[in-house]
């Protein structure tokens, strides 16, 4: 018997990859194997990491474009 989560999350190379913006929680589709992507909803730029061909995650922001960094020096 396969759990629902198992069906939903099993590796599937044919599935469209989506990531979720950490700022606005909108899901968007990055270009395959790209290491950067821009959230179409809020406009923030993200660095990406790929768990597999079918699974990308946000690694961190592109710091130069991160809001409120202008005066930060730590």
């Amino acid at each position, binding site marked *: 018997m*396969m759990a629902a*989560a*198992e069906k939903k*999350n099993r*590796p599937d190379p044919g599935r469209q990859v989506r990531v979720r913006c950490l700022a606005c929680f909108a899901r968007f589709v990055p270009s395959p194997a790209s290491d950067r992507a821009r959230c179409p909803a809020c406009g923030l730029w993200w660095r990406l*990491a790929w*768990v597999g061909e079918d699974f990308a995650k946000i690694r*961190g922001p592109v710091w130069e474009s991160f809001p*409120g960094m202008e005066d930060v020096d*730590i």
Partner: protein
Amino acid sequence: MSQVSVTSQRLAVIDLERRTFRVEQLDPQLTSRFLGGRGLAARLLMQYAPRGCDPLGPENPLIISAGLLTGTMASASARVNFAARSPLTGLLGSSNMGGGFGPELRWAGFEHLVIRGRASEPLWLYVRDGKVEFFPAARLWGQGVYQTRRSLYAEIADPRAQVLCIGPAGENQVRFACIMGGIKSAAGRTGMGAVMGSKNLKAIVCRGRGDLPIARPEKALEYNRRVIGQVVSSKVSRVMQRWGTAFIFDVTNTTGLVRTRNFQYNQLPRSEDLECEAMEPYSQSMAACFGCQVHCRHRYRLASGPYRDFWGQGPEYSSLGAFGTEVGCRSMRTVLECNHLVNDLGLDTIETGSMIAWAMELYEKGILTRADTGGLELGWGNDRAVAEMIRQIAYRRHLGDILARGPLPAAEAIGKDSRRYLIQVKGMSSLHSDERPTPSLALNIAVASRGADHLRGRPAIDLYNLPLDLLEKVYRRPDGYDGPLVNDWTSYRGKARMVMWQEILYMLVDSLGICKFHTVFFSPNHPAFEEFSQLVEYNTGLELSARQLWTAGWRCCVLERIYNLDHGLARDDDWLPDRFFDEPTPLGLPVARGKCLDREKFAAMVSEYYRLYGLDRDGRPSPELLNRLGLSGQLAGHAAGGGQ
């Protein structure tokens, strides 16, 4: 060796002074009431520790307890619990470890070891096949964890044995010394290594050839396959299999939920070298505890430096904060070297990093000077100073001797305005997470039974912004809770339920001996009460419904609170330092920036949490609750006679 029952609770009471032991069988009814592991350990602590005993005195027992499912066919059933009165907090000492010691203890014929007294000279114990032997350990005393393990394995010539030991920090009774069960597995929190050191006990070696007869092996195997599929196919497990718990850093640092420079910032910008992906040049493979398919820990080796000949494991998420953001360092290499250091010296990563970060802020503010630090320049981001301060703490040199006492005694010794800058609850420092923007996580660390701690009740999935119907599926079970639930993680509403639910679930898995990564910690789709009910039945034959397991977890949580109340806990202790309420977060995404907690709303959360548990306004269990949970008579004076 003859077969034993998988539900038996076999106990070795070890007297270090006389070098004797006796074997007992606990009342079988205790199993369904307290399960095993952490829950039953709290019960044994009430029985064997005289109320108010000196945490570093011979009368404080060190209790080692395997979970009810530890070593069975249940997945990730590796966990073993350590309990004593904490030398760090004076309250409940309790710490939980994976690796392989727990299963081996059961195969060696015991579910529990109660270690009493103090040896007249350093000893190590060999627990095997129903017996406990005592060996001199003078030649091991002073050795680090790595060398101690090498020496013991060379002596016993049995690579399948499991070794627990302390390092110099435990020997020197650093109040947050840990017990190491491998090169990384650690009973890290609340200073159990100091208790072991106070007993002149350097190590415990365990080897068993016994068996744990599974009640319904075919069913257990079939059901466990299902649970494994449920766990390893979740997205979070796929990420952990690649990067371990370090993956959390990418999300929390981006959002602005990471303590930085002690507590001055909530994010360390441009810290790409601390992100989990930065481990890839160092990692050789992934390793796992007994019976686990997730494999969440890197095996790594550094090409140069004092640890180049040793394998390391980790780093955990906590290490990225302790030796990264908290102290202002941006180097994965520094994190890995410090990870080696604390594991070899036998120090709690979280407490060590927090104490050093606190000292750095005091140094910045001029409360500490180079005259206090032994000449060390304790500036933010000084990687070498962090490593040196770790050594100072373990060997109790210079400022390290003060920091080794733990947060509150150290603040008392330093004086001035130093206590204001501590980030602690009940005398124990917090993980490097910054809970100012997240009321649910803040409540978790305020009320946790062993002090500021994320592993006792963190509703981590609150951060996922999950659909409400999914949250309800998780948090309304198994008792039919019909109060509020809110999927906005900045809200105060409905969060007390989440924290209580997670506390009871974590108590359950800690008592069963299952890893938290196999339950609803990082994923709402992972096993919870219903699945554990099946696992218990198929592995042990005990028919305990999800609701009964809920009640057992609740009972054990209340029992831990009773222990703390007996040792002076008051409502004021379920609270956070002023900085959480007075200093807004300066960085992060808009949702996390400019946030601090509201005192009134937070106090209302604490009250709601008490009400849900059945506690009165001071956090004490009502007579009705004690009666309902079968704990009447436990409060006040639990073991005046010091056990049997």
